[in-house]
């Protein structure tokens, strides 16, 4: 297995353990107090995930000659992320039965969903064509959804009182059907939760009377945000997919305890922090996106003083991009998971279905090379002779062109046959198009990289930003081989490639804060004709009250893990807009209370500054007044994080033992002698110019002829193009 250094005799204390239990494999990332890391793998054990967890940890610890019993007592931070929850959503199968009580007349909300749900998560061409749209299967069958007559309007006024007999009938009917959880979702309950709370009281009385074990979950308590379809999906997912995982997570905690670990297991959550396994809201750990890399990138930026980053991650199946501005990511408030729109805060990333494992095919209708959207994923390609992949992939093209050393793929763990790659490219791509093998392989790489370049440019400029204000950070196992290609001519300030690119996402999971975050939809108007005193006494008080309530929720979550208020650092956010606008912008408030004119003014000034930055000075319209559409509170508690290595700078000349060989590789139409280096043996300060290939344990960094790179003291490569 790959590790950051080769000398196994060094003493290691395993400090940070980050585990990712995927559908097939459980990956471990282990880091010691010196920032050295190693990784491990084991089969995922869905029946009892703790077995795969321990085996994978064991595999990693073996690299350091440690057993689990020896290694676990040193742990100070353990972060787990599993896919069991997401699988329940994807498969629409759960161990538990869920019933729903909903505002009468809205019983079909789940079934109707939203138009976007009929194509969300599909490939671009499938999104374009109506015949490939289909509404996803609802999570809960219609016979377990009961209507209750009541109505609260958008301002929180009661229009129709709660018909308590409807509640009793509904609860009794659902209990007759033997449900484990009753979810209650009434319209506009984020604004006024009285009816939901009264419903819970009645339901609990009946449950007690009947001696049932059923629990009641309210949308106004779990996810008090606008949009009933998303809110219902989310509370339902909490009951249907997340709750059943509590036992699994407890098993993992027990396994850690049994092996002498003295650390609370935390779970990665969509808002970019980790939360305790006893958290009330677990559904936010249903992460489908690769946000670990974004968290790692933000931490990396904070440590090394890079404020604005464009993060790019190429894996086997997808290219993921995200933006970090002033050391904070953007939040998507309505992400999609398992083809359902949820109302959870999730670190915003754009993802396109193109990666190193993407299938390459000739479209028979147009005689044109096409990539993906399907991919061989971790099966690599046809040249990986131990797998049964039959279609040429992007990696096969790199192998044919001599960029990737067949002997060194995944540190030699995956046997690669270059002749197979060449033969298959010839048959599948080159011959049908009447091209040479290498010309065809080059064509594939060009198509991929220009696609990635377009997508990347769209993500940055589409948000109104200029690439010159950003450093582009490239990671993921497949990143560095393409970095030069997809960043070419985009005009980034700098292009950075950390040496540990392949383990960067896991590094990010280890770098995640211990953080809870709560959001609530609001509609607090600050009218323009009010004096600041009047505004503070009305809107200011209202916002302060919402923040205080959210703060209390965060505090309660930390209390579950015996963490007191004095250890928590709070951060306050709003979504704000000028009155009458459709879209809001995300503002981090400089103050946690706005009940005095001075503090409210500080918040409004911050909003104006944010608006100016995102749009322009001319677009500001304070004369319209302001509306606060959402309030959020984040609570962070310090945890031990991975060290970023710092070493002394050496000269520009690479050490002799870093040079491996010179071999021919195909660059832009010609075969050139290319120097091959050991990525991990280079020293800080070293400078290299292309053509060169830097081979690491789990990644290959390709340096085309017109490029140069130098390694800084943090083992980060800076890639530049020579004019």
């Amino acid at each position, binding site marked *: 297995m790959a590790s950051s250094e080769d000398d196994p005799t060094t003493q290691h204390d395993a400090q940070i353990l980050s585990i990712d239990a995927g559908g097939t494999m459980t990956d471990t990332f282990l880091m010691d107090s010196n920032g050295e890391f190693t990784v491990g793998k084991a089969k995922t054990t869905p029946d009892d995930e703790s077995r795969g967890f321990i085996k994978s940890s064991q595999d990693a610890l073996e690299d350091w000659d440690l057993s689990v019993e020896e290694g676990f007592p040193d742990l100070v931070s353990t972060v787990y992320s599993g896919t069991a929850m997401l699988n329940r959503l994807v498969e629409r199968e759960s161990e538990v039965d869920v019933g729903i009580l909903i505002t009468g007349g809205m019983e079909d909300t789940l079934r109707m969903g939203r138009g976007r749900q009929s194509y969300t998560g599909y490939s671009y*061409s*499938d999104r374009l064509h109506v*015949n490939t749209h*289909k509404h996803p299967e609802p999570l809960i069958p219609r016979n377990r959804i009961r209507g209750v007559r009541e109505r609260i309007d958008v301002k929180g006024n009661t229009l129709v009182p709660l018909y308590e007999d409807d509640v009793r009938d509904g609860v009794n009917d659902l209990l007759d059907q033997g449900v484990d959880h009753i979810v209650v979702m009434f319209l506009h309950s984020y604004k006024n939760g009285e009816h939901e709370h009264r419903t819970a009281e009645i339901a609990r009385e009946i449950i007690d009377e009947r001696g049932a074990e059923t629990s009641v979950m309210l949308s106004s308590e779990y996810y008090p945000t606008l949009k009933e379809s998303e809110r219902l999906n989310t509370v339902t997912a909490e009951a249907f997919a997340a709750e059943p995982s509590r036992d699994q997570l407890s098993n993992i905690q027990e396994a850690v305890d049994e092996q002498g670990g003295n650390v609370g297991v935390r779970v990665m959550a969509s808002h970019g922090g980790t939360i305790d396994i006893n958290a009330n809201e677990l559904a936010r750990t249903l992460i489908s996106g690769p946000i670990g890399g974004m968290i790692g990138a933000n931490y990396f930026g904070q440590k090394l003083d890079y404020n604005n980053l464009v993060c790019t991650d190429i894996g086997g199946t997808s290219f993921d991009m995200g933006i970090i501005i002033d050391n904070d990511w953007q939040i998507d408030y309505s992400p999609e998971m398992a083809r359902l729109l949820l109302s959870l805060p999730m670190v915003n990333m754009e993802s396109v279905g193109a990666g190193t494992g993407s299938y390459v*095919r000739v*479209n*028979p*209708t147009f005689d044109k090379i096409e990539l993906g959207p399907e991919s061989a994923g971790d099966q690599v390609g046809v040249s990986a002779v131990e797998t049964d992949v039959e279609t040429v992939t992007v990696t096969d093209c790199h192998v044919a062109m001599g960029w990737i050393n067949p002997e060194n793929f995944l540190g030699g763990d995956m046997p690669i046959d270059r002749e197979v790659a060449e033969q298959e490219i010839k048959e599948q791509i080159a011959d049908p198009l009447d091209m040479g093998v290498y010309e065809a392989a080059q064509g594939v790489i060009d198509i991929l990289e220009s696609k990635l370049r377009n997508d990347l440019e769209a993500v940055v400029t589409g948000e109104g930003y200029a690439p010159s204000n950003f450093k582009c950070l490239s990671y993921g196992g497949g990143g560095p081989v393409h970095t030069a290609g997809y960043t070419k001519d985009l005009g980034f300030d700098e292009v950075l490639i950390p040496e540990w690119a392949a383990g960067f996402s896991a590094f990010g999971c280890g770098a995640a804060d211990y953080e809870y975050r709560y959001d609530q939809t609001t509609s607090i108007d600050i009218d323009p004709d009010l004096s600041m005193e009047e505004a503070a006494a009305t809107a200011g008080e209202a916002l302060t009250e919402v923040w205080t309530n959210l703060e209390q929720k965060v505090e309660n979550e930390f209390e579950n893990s015996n963490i007191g208020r004095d250890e928590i650092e709070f951060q306050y956010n709003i979504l704000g807009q000028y009155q009458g606008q459709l879209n809001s912008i995300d503002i981090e408030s400089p103050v946690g209370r706005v009940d005095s004119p001075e503090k409210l003014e500080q918040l409004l000034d911050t909003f104006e500054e944010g608006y100016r930055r995102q749009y322009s000075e001319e677009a500001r319209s304070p004369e319209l007044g302001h509306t606060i559409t959402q309030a959020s509170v984040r609570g962070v508690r310090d945890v031990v994080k991975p060290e970023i290595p710092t070493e002394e700078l050496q000269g520009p000349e690479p050490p002799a033992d870093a040079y491996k060989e010179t071999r021919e590789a195909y660059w832009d139409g010609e075969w050139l002698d290319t120097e091959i280096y050991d990525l991990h043996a280079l020293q800080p300060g070293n400078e290299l110019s292309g053509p060169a290939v830097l081979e690491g344990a789990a990644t290959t960094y390709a340096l085309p002829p017109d490029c140069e790179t130098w390694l800084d003291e943090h083992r980060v490569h800076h890639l530049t193009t020579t004019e």
Partner: protein
Amino acid sequence: MPESYPREHIEDLVDDNLEWNQLHDMMSDFKDADRFQQVRDVLQERVDWDDPIIIPYADHLYVVAKPDNRWVIKCDCGHEFCEHDENWKMDALINVRDSEEAYLEIYPEDMHPHPDYMELREFFCPGCNTLLEVTNVMPGYPLIHEFEPDIETFYSEWIEEPIPTAEPESA
């Protein structure tokens, strides 16, 4: 992408027995090279007559080759309508719903178009009385001729196969 799907898969496609993910995969992928011929074979096997199907024309309707080099539109019950480039609806049994009363037979109250603005025309096969097509048009609008297939171009340029012909009629 398979160059060709197994026969059973195509039968399931014709019978609408595929799971959504199977169907979705088929639609998203490049089209299998022999899809048309395979579907045609399945359809041919299911009708009781021997005239070779040239193309499926609509639900229950086909353009078939007749011995005297004619191409006619034929229902799966065996009823023959007209030449392939004529409008078969001219020969169909037609029921027109152009009154409140007629609409209410099939629509809930207040959920149907106003008869002065729109009428429903239902076309049935004279051979088997199957409902073949429904059009909704303004009263007085001519019969819509929906499809005039360019069979020669389709066979010569799209699938590059000879057009099926009927056995000459035995004497």
